[in-house]
Structures are given as structure tokens and as C-alpha cells.
């Protein structure tokens, strides 16, 4: 127990929702303050910089939908990662799974002789399958051979990156692309509809929202969801309870990686309408989705809000690039800082602060200090 002015800081067994939210918001604010140093190093007044960002994102009626647009892949990847993390599988491979999904969908759009109404559904299906497949190998390696999944999923990201790179430079390079490294433009039936005047491909957004709701139900109210939670919280107890770890983790990862694959479909079918250089397909959504999932603290529904928040960061990144002339990596700085402050603040969740002014005549220092 420690005293801070009139407040008493004491260990808490279960953090309340409000306290968790408060700590998270404080961490994000602290990260933004730390990032102010970057503007300052760039010779910009941080306040002016943040004002510019605000004006270019939230305050701009035309730019605001961009937040939603960027939140779509973040939501799909992020909600999938929530599930993987709940199964205690450190899937760092959403980026690669997204690219695999994009490639899968492109394959259908370019080469599958399907009637028009079936093209988009087939693309989503192919994208989800490709993403899931991309996530399956690291899952099997971890469950069968105990290969660290952080490293293997990351390696799969690089492999996906160079694979897509190879596709657009080589076999899938468009005959009509004038030597540029991208595929031909998809036919009209493979274009996702947009909200008028925006780049928000709403079918993918709806898919993301539906997935968040479905996974919330899945975790709380189904047998498989229960098994995933037990496996993630205590694998030894899961074994004891007769839960098959292989089946459980594979289920979680197929959904997780499949969701990332869907995000890839949305990007190619909704925005680019072709497969292109991998770092243009995804601006690092798969990595940023780790923050979406971490900030959501295991709740699929909360990931809707956190994805929107990260969408705001990405959209602010665009503003910084265009208006403030900063390099595109500035988004990574923000993401890295937010993630650092977020996990650093988690220790605070073990405590609670209570308003308990010291009584007259009782010096504050007298209250005993103790560790945990």
C-alpha cells in the first residue's frame, strides 16, 4: 500500500473495467506525448503538428471515412489475433496471412471462369482459405515439434512478401501493366462496392463487424470457445480436462489466419483492384493488428473500437506524410510507442487507487509501504 497525496494505492485482485479503460487511455496519451518529441526533432511544434493531424483526420469530413477504410483490415486481422492470443498462440503472422489472402483472391479474380455474381464470394472464400493455409504450417510446427511460433510466423511474413513480389514481377505480371510490377486490373465483377464518395468497401466492413460479434459469442458460449479459453489460460489443465490441444489451437488459428486472409481480399477487391507490390497491398496492417488485439485485451467486441483507433493512427500517418512531409515510417514510431506504453502500463492494472484523505494528525508517511 502506498499513499500519494489524498489517494491510497493498493493492490487489486481484479481490475475494474473503468480502471482498465482509464489505464489504457492514459498509456495512449503518454505515448502521444512521447511522440511529440519526434515532431520537435523534425523542427515542428508538436501542438501545431497534432492540430494539423486533427484537422486532417477527425475534423475533415472528406478525410474522416479514411479512418474507417483503414480500420477494415485492422479489424479483420485484429479480431483474428484476439482469438489466437486467447489460445496463447503468438500469431505475429497476420501480415503474411493477409498477403496470402490477397494473392488467393487475385488468383480467383484473374483466372477463375466464374459467373459474375459468384466472383466476389469465391474471392472471399479463396482469400480466407489461403490465409488459413498460411497460418496452418506454423501452427502444426508449434504443436507437433514445439517450433517457436513467433519466429515461424514472422518468417512466413517474409516468405509471403517475397512470394507476392515474385507473383507480380513474374507469372502474374499484367500484360497491360506497361512493365510495372502489378497484375492486370480485375474485371468489374471483382470490385467491391464502396460507400458513395469514400473508399470504404462496406461489405468487408460488415464482415469484420459480424466476425467480431460472432467470435464474442463463440468464445463465451460455445464448447470450442470454452476449450480455446482453457487451452490458452492453462494448457496443463486443458490436457487434464481431456481437451485436445492440437484440435483447439488449430481451430483458433484457422479462424485467426482466415480472418487476416479476408482482410487481404478487402484490400485488393475494394481498394487496388489488382495485386501489386506487397508493401502497397498492406501498410503493415498485420503488425499493427497486434496492437489492436492487445489493446482490446482479449475481447473481440472491443477490437472494433481499437481497430478504429489504429485506423485513426494510420490515417493520421497519411496526413503527416502529405501535410507535414514526414516519412511513411512515422506510423511505425507511433505504433511502437503505443505498444510500449500499453504493456508498460499493465502493471498498474494490479493496483487500484482509492480516494482516502489522511486524517488530521496522521502524517501520510506513517502509512506503511510495502512491495507486492
Amino acid at each position: 500500500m502506498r499513499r500519494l497525496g489524498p489517494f491510497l494505492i493498493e493492490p487489486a485482485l481484479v481490475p475494474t473495467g473503468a480502471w482498465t479503460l482509464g489505464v489504457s487511455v492514459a498509456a495512449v496519451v503518454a505515448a502521444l506525448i512521447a511522440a511529440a518529441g519526434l515532431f520537435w526533432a523534425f523542427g515542428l511544434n508538436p501542438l501545431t503538428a497534432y492540430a494539423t493531424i486533427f484537422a486532417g483526420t477527425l475534423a475533415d469530413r472528406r478525410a474522416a471515412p479514411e479512418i474507417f477504410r483503414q480500420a477494415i483490415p485492422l479489424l479483420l486481422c485484429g479480431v483474428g489475433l484476439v482469438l489466437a492470443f486467447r489460445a496463447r498462440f503468438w500469431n505475429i503472422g497476420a501480415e503474411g496471412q493477409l498477403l496470402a489472402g490477397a494473392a488467393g483472391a487475385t488468383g480467383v479474380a484473374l483466372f477463375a471462369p466464374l459467373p459474375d455474381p459468384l466472383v466476389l464470394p469465391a474471392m472471399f472464400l479463396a482469400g480466407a482459405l489461403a490465409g488459413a493455409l498460411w497460418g496452418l504450417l506454423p501452427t502444426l510446427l508449434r504443436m507437433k515439434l514445439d517450433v517457436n511460433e513467433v519466429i515461424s510466423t514472422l518468417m512466413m511474413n517474409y516468405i509471403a512478401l517475397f512470394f507476392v513480389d515474385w507473383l507480380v514481377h513474374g507469372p502474374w505480371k499484367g500484360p497491360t501493366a506497361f512493365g510495372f510490377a502489378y497484375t492486370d486490373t480485375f474485371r468489374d465483377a471483382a470490385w467491391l462496392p464502396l460507400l458513395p464518395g469514400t473508399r470504404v468497401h462496406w461489405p468487408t466492413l460488415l464482415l469484420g463487424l459480424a466476425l467480431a460479434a460472432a467470435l464474442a459469442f463463440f468464445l463465451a458460449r460455445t464448447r470450442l470457445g470454452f476449450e480455446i479459453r482453457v487451452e490458452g489460460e492453462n494448457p496443463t489443465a486443458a490436457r487434464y480436462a481431456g481437451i485436445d490441444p492440437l484440435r483447439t489451437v488449430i481451430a483458433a488459428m484457422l479462424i485467426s489466419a482466415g480472418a487476416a486472409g479476408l482482410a487481404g481480399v478487402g484490400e485488393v477487391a475494394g481498394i487496388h483492384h489488382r495485386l501489386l507490390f506487397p508493401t502497397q497491398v498492406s501498410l503493415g496492417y498485420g503488425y499493427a493488428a497486434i496492437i489492436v488485439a492487445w489493446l482490446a485485451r482479449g475481447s473481440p467486441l472491443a477490437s472494433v473500437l481499437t481497430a478504429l483507433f489504429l485506423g485513426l493512427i494510420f490515417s493520421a500517418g497519411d496526413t503527416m506524410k502529405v501535410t507535414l512531409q514526414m516519412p511513411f515510417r512515422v506510423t511505425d514510431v507511433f505504433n511502437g510507442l503505443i505498444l510500449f506504453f500499453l504493456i508498460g502500463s499493465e502493471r498498474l492494472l494490479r493496483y487500484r487507487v482509492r480516494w482516502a484523505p489522511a486524517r488530521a494528525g496522521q502524517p501520510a508517511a506513517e502509512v506503511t509501504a510495502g512491495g507486492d
Partner: protein
Amino acid sequence: MTVAQAGTHSSPPAPRDASEMLLLRDITKTFPGVVANDRVTLDVRRGEVHALLGENGAGKTTLMNVLYGIYPPDAGEIWVRGTRARIRSPRDAIALGIGMVPQHFLLVRRHTVAENIALGLPGESFVFPVRGIGARIEELGARYGLAVDPGARIFELSPSEQQRVEILKALIRGARILVLDEPTSVLTPQETRGLFDVLRRMKQDGHAVIFISHKLDEVMAIADRVTVLRKGRVVATQALAGTDKRALARLMVGRDIEFRLPKTSPHTTGEGLLIEDLVVLNDRGLPALRGLSLAVRRGEIVGIAGVAGNGQRELVEAVTGLRRATRGRIRVLDHEITNRSARAVFEAGVAHVPEDRLRMGIVPSLSVAENLVLKTYRQPPFSRGPIIDRTAIDRFARRMIAEYEIVTPGPQTPARLLSGGNIQKLILSRELSARPSVIVAAHPTSGLDVSATEQIHTLLLRRRQDGTAILLVSEDLDEVLALSDRIAVLFSGEIIGVLDEATADRERIGLMMMGQRG
């Protein structure tokens, strides 16, 4: 006989005589929601074995952790050899000549004995530090009767040998005050006597020994004086001469306790669990059970006695479907369950009270209710198809909480917030509610206080009465003797003898535990 009541100290803490090695004065230590030590005073003299007696949860280990600098006390003073000491870390404690042999050994399992002893030891040369240490280990070992091979790796050693390493670690650092926390819990009766010889030699050398225990017989056998703790307070400090077990028990628990459980003679009704020629490998792929055969009849308790590490864990895991058998078979009421999955074994009627409650028995962050259906969540009424029925689970949980008197704020409380005894009751209620025909209970009362232990024992005996076959594995020989109808001694992966409760005596079992055939 001096009986010191806690909290009555007001005199200045000048050492009363030159023989006083250590004085803990009015130590208070609180944890969230618990006062672990409440103004505890303990004085220990040169050349004495001072027992710190109290049941599990009385605050003995906390007090010693305060002494060893692991926890800062909230209040109180520590005096070592007449000087006020500030002990902020184990380093300070070691410098003051305090050594600790914890109940759960703090050894690096993959390192050698010499490496464990050399760890952080000042004075050894920087390069090749273990070279010179072998001779010192042997010299000290010879002086106190603590023989151990300096080049052996810890995981290759028996618990008794590991304990010797812990004692050597302290002695080589010049410990004059040695604390042993429940040192006999892993030893055979003979090994216990060996340890007592070591302690007597240390005593003669002028060491002070603090012997933490909740076992009255051992305290009577080795201690010169005893301080009794109950619920964090000192209830008495007195010389052992002139007291008896019953009086100590009353001080420790606050009431009279039954040394014999009210146990009726068994009504066995045929085979419950049958194990034939079982061969099971351990985690390193070496045989842990070598052709073990054992039968447990319905309505009897068969206790497994043995030194830890002789195949107990592998036996429990093989019977409960958590480990594959490479040979042999296991049957439950004529159903073959060999190498079936843990779920299939449970559904065949085998309940499992696991050794490690927190790591295996529960999912600490899930609710009490969810933990109560950890094995039955797939069955109606808890599941309908793939969907879980929370209302049915909640209703079941409320019933279990009432029936087994589980103390919890409610069914939705995370299980990790429960006390050890209540976690064990949660586990038992879950396992017993499935009406098993066989119960495999591993260390069912380790770390629990007397009343929780009594409750657990009563539950098991009641099931025995109902015709359940119970396989009890426990490191606590007293518990095995108290509960079992027959006692099977496990040594090096084999049952080397089965004794009837009536004819079993500690001496004989102890010899068998060390490999002598009965």
C-alpha cells in the same frame, strides 16, 4: 517453562544472554487481506534446535522469508548476535550467517551440485570456479554427514540428496543460523533420522537451527525448545521437556485433534482398478514404471508410499490417461482403459485429484462455475450441441458450492482468488460429482491446514464407504498410514511390497521406500 504471550513485549530488546543468536521482535507482515505475521517474537540460542510449529498457513514460512530478506516486514526488529540487523535481501542474510533450506528446493536442476554451490559464492576464482569447490564439499560433507557427489546433476539426485545440497550451500557460506522449512516432508523415516543426526552435529558445533514443522512427533524428537504459531500469532514459546504431543497439538490448532481418523473396516466388493505389468516412460524417455502391477478393490483405499521421484507421477498420469503406457494394461471395473484419452478415462469412471492444484487442477483465471464443469462441460445439461448453457452451469455451481461448503464470493469469482483448501474442495466436488468408480488422489492435502485436511479426508473416507476404489498417492507417510487399508511401497518404478494397514509400521515401510524388499 516460559510462555510468552504475543504483543506483551515492552522491555528494551537487549539480548538476555550471550547464548542468544537471533531475536525476531514483534514482526508484523501483511499481505492483501491477510495478516500473515502479527507481532511475532522468536528468540533462538546458540546450540539449540528451535522448532517453529504451526499448521499450514500459520505464518511460519512468511516469518522465515522476512528473516531471510525476501519480504520486508511491515514492522518489527531483527537482532543477530546482539546487534540490530537490517536485512533487505538474501545477500544481507547470508552475510549475517543465516542460511535457509526451503521446503521447495531452490536448485538449478540442470546444473551440477558444484555449480549450484558455487553460484554467487564469493572467494572462488573467476575462471574454473567449480574446481576448488569439490574438496570443500567433501570436507564439509564428512564433518556433518552430508555426502553428495559434486559432479552430479541435480535432477539425478533423490530428494534427500538435494536437501543435503541445500544444507551444504548454506554451510559453505558460513551459516551459523540454519532455517529448515518442513525438511522431513520428502524423507523416509530413516532419512529423517539421518537428517536429525546432521542437525545434532551442527548443534554441537554451536550452530542454531530453526526447524519448521507441523509434525508433532518430529518436533518432540529433535527440538530443544518450540515456538508455536497459530493464525500468524505466537501462542507459546517453551522448552520441549515437560510437554507432550497432545498439549502441543492443542496449542497449534486451538482445539483437540483426533490422531486417528474414525475409520470403519473396509467392505470391499470386487475389483475396482486393476493394473498389470505397466511400463511407462518419464519425460526424458527413460522407464519410470517397470512392470508395475497393483489392484485396488472397490471400497478400499490403497496408499502408495515412496520417496518422491520413484514413479508416483507417472503412475498417476498413466492411470488417468495423461501418459502413454508402453506395455501392460489398466482396467476399471472390467473396462479396458489402457492408453485411452484423459476424457475417455474420466468418462469410464476415473476421477483425478491432481498433485499440482493450481497448475493442473484448475484454470485460475476462469470462474469457479466454469472450473466446476471443466470435465463435464460437453455433456448435457451444460452443453446442448456445440452451445454452452450458462444457466445450467451456474445452477450446478451453486449446488456444488453449497454441498461441499466451498467458500467463495460467488460462482462467477475467478478460481484463483480462492484459498488453497477451497480450491481443493472445488476440485474434489467436480471430480466426485461425476460419481466415479475409481478415485486417483495425488497429495490431496499438501499445504492445507488441519481443518481443510480433515474435510478432505472425510470426503475420501465417505467415498470409500460408498464402494469407490481409491488410489492415494502422498509424500506424507502419516497421511498414507492414516487413510489406507493397504499400503503399496513404490521404489524405482516397481511395487516392492504391499502391507496391510494392521501390520504396517513406519520402520518397515521406510526401509522398503529405500529399496529393501518387504
